[in-house]
């Protein structure tokens, strides 16, 4: 069993309630932070912890906090990004649904550190029932003196408000989220100015992911240095993984980033192996935006070394032979799945979610969807594959926000590693409508037992 810092208590009966959560040691970090530490000391601990943003970009959280401007007389805001929408990712939902007080606790400590008297949780609109769970937890924390006026006699006031989005992946991008919080379309802003200088209502703002803010709780409780000892290299602490696709045990798992990809997929503690006794074909290890890898490059790097479940190892080899940790949305494809079709659903997703501000993304995502549809339906030409490659290259790096890159990368990686499967859809168009390409040479060369 690896170390569990976030979900250790998630299965304690009644943990959703304040009483049980408190009895299990909850809200200790608020007491410690407010009574014995100042805001600067909290920021220092988070810096020491090496905590990296858990939303997908992996930016050091303590550093992000240290950028916040503090002009005299201007309120500052902390905004929690609960707009979880990256296909393959459902960890924040799990955390909020099963152990909501952990997020509220992390938010109080973080709000104190940043000087935010009004903190907002921006949650995706579809998670409607979780809004009730969070508001209940906020009410309980307030009734017990952890929120509201003069928290624990410190003179610090804090309110947490929950705002629902209304269905837009782009609002997970922090400046789009800020626009949405202001009651506008989710069009990302041009940076600079960064939110730390001018965020919501032009005030200094920090936007952090749910899991990042929850991780502040163990960091304060155990100290940044102790936290940094868990994990490896620049992948400190624990990470929540959302495992899905063709595995025996889909779900949310907390890992300490020292385990191998092979162990994560095949051990009974985690994914429990490929479903129905099938073989592993490919995997998208960090949410739909990150490069797909064939089994042989997933379990071992191009140099033949074991690949581990952490930021550095998953990206070993760059985009040529590696991928990314991203948001931790771990999508597994078995031998019967079609990479062209899976890529098509992603392209359709990004076309649907493009805000339309930048033409390379607005037009390019639509083109990619059409070409992939054609190829998948056996109506494609060989030149379509080159055209797809050309379009994705023209989107990448040419847009205001990273949605363009996020749309381009999965298409690029699918062609890079599975080009013969795309070609087969052209050369064997009729056959491609009756069966899938199969495992071919992508198979994992290591013998691994299948679990049924």
């Amino acid at each position, binding site marked *: 069993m690896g170390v569990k810092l976030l979900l250790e208590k998630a299965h304690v009966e009644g943990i959703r309630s304040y009483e049980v959560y408190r009895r299990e040691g909850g809200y200790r970090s608020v007491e410690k932070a407010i009574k014995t530490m100042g805001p600067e000391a909290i920021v220092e601990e988070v810096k020491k912890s090496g905590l990296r943003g858990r939303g997908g970009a992996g930016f050091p959280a303590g550093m992000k906090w240290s950028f916040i401007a503090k002009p005299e007389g201007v309120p500052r805001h902390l905004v929690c990004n609960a707009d979880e929408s990256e296909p393959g990712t459902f960890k924040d939902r799990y955390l909020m649904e099963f152990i909501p007080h952990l997020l509220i606790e992390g938010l109080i400590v973080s709000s104190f550190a940043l000087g935010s008297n009004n903190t907002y949780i921006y949650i995706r609109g*579809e998670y409607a029932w979780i809004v009730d769970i969070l508001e209940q937890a906020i009410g309980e924390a307030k009734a017990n003196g952890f929120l509201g006026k003069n928290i624990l006699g410190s003179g610090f006031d804090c309110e947490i408000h929950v705002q629902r989005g*209304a269905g837009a992946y782009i609002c997970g991008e922090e400046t789009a989220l800020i626009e949405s919080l202001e009651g*506008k379309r989710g069009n990302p802003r041009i940076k600079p100015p960064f939110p730390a200088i001018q965020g919501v209502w032009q005030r200094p703002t920090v936007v952090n992911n749910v899991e990042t803010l929850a991780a502040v709780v163990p960091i304060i409780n155990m100290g940044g240095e102790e936290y940094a000892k868990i994990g490896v290299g620049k992948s400190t602490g624990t990470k929540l993984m959302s495992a899905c696709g063709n595995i025996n045990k889909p779900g949310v798992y907390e890992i300490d980033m020292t385990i191998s990809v092979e162990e994560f997929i095949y051990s009974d503690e985690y994914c429990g192996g490929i479903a129905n006794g099938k073989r592993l074909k490919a995997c998208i290890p960090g949410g739909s935006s990150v490069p797909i890898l064939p089994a042989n490059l997933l379990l071992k790097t191009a140099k033949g070394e074991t690949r581990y479940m952490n930021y550095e190892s998953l990206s070993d080899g760059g985009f040529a032979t590696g991928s990314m940790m991203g948001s931790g949305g771990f999508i597994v494809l078995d031998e019967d799945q079609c990479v062209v079709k899976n890529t098509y659903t992603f392209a359709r997703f990004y076309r649907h979610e493009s805000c339309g501000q930048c033409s390379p993304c607005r037009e390019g995502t639509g083109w990619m969807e059409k070409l992939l549809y054609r190829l998948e339906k056996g109506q494609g030409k060989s030149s379509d594959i080159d055209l797809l490659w050309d379009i994705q290259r023209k989107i990448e790096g040419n847009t205001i926000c990273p949605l363009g890159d996020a749309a381009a990368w999965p298409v690029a990686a699918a062609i890079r590693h599975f080009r013969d499967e795309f070609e087969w859809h052209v050369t064997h168009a009729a056959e491609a409508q009756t069966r899938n390409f199969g495992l071919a040479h992508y198979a994992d060369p290591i013998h691994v037992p299948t679990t049924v």
Partner: protein
Amino acid sequence: MTKFSETQLTEFNRLVARYPEGKQKSALLPVLHLAQDSFGGWLSSETMDYVAELLRIAPIEVYEVATFYSMYNLKPVGKYMFEVCQTGPCMLRGSDDIVAYIGEKLSIKPGETTADGLFTLKTVECLGACGYAPMMQLGKHYREHLTKEKVDAIIDECRKTAAANN
């Protein structure tokens, strides 16, 4: 006449009070949810104009938001809307079959509503339930690990609830 009831107005005021003075437009998304729930499950132009008036903003500011976000319905929908996820992780677990089965069972295509106004079938993009696929959203909640049998049971349940409320 499109007008919030007293209870709905209380909720409206609670939503607006969460933002700084003069930033009442920030409440637009939650207020549109409230309006959609209050006025038949969709946003007519009359409803949107009413929201604009309440928030003291121009009607165009409401239209541009209502058309941007996928959860706002700009035309009437059935009493029960089956929003089935079709993105990668759900597709890998058979969402295509679920969409086809619902369509066959209710004799409608995605985007259509049954003649009795009870059901709308809609395909949607990732709802963050990838580990519990295939799934759909029905009202405020998710229905997960869908099978044909589960779909049958859900349809029966909706019909019974509708009959009981008539």
